[in-house]
């Protein structure tokens, strides 16, 4: 499990990957709360067509300290990774938030979103597997390069 310093470096690595693809966004901040919780959330605009808006990747995570000390390791408590392909009018996302709710309702901690047409999903939430931010960037940028179907029909609706 990472330390606070490692999480700042990890956030920097994520930002660097996106900057090197030509994405634009303010330098992201790792927010530190009085409870010890760490959080970040930022939206990167990808280069290319900006009609009607640029394609975006949002990366957001919440990390909770394992111990109540400054030197604690952290565990990821929530995540939300979103790719909104405005030029192609579609969306793909990997989410792990509201864990108590999803555990109670569906016996899962994570879910996915998939919209072949932005704003008109065939299903509001799909079952999925946990992913990390690096896997999400790889998946989203591959979709950014490739046109065609997102493959929503292959996913299992909740």
């Amino acid at each position, binding site marked *: 499990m990472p330390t606070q310093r490692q999480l700042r*470096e990890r956030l920097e690595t994520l930002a*660097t990957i996106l900057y*090197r693809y030509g994405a634009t966004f303010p330098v992201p901040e790792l*927010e530190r709360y009085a409870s010890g919780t760490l959080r970040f959330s930022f939206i990167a605009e990808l280069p290319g067509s900006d009609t009607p808006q640029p394609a975006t990747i949002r990366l957001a995570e919440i990390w909770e300290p394992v111990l109540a000390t400054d030197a604690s390791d952290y565990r990821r408590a929530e995540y939300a990774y979103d790719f909104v392909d405005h030029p192609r009018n579609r969306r793909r996302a990997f989410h792990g938030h509201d864990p108590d709710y999803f555990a109670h309702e569906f016996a899962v901690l994570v879910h996915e979103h998939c919209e072949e047409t932005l704003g008109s999903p065939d299903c509001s939430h799909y079952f999925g597997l946990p992913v990390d931010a690096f896997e999400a960037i*790889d998946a989203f940028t591959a979709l950014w390069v490739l046109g065609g179907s997102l493959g929503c029909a292959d996913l299992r609706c909740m």
Partner: protein
Amino acid sequence: MQEKQFLSPADVARELSVSTATVLRLIHAGQLPAIRVSERIYRIPRASFEMFSAGTLPQPGDLATIKDVAGPVPGLSADEILPRRKLAAGSRR
């Protein structure tokens, strides 16, 4: 004619007057950013190629900061309407 947004390793090889194998080595070494779209196919965003050519690819260092924040931790659901479990016909909650 509109410029291609994504370049193949062969496109980059032509631009740099090197072999495609050299471009693939740059990709595998992490020196040239590339997106892996399938097991053996890479595409290089034009913006990445232009930064690489100009020697201006961003490097880690001050690309993330820590900020102390007061108040509760905002959740990540972003106003998402949470789904309800579908109940079998005749069942009650």
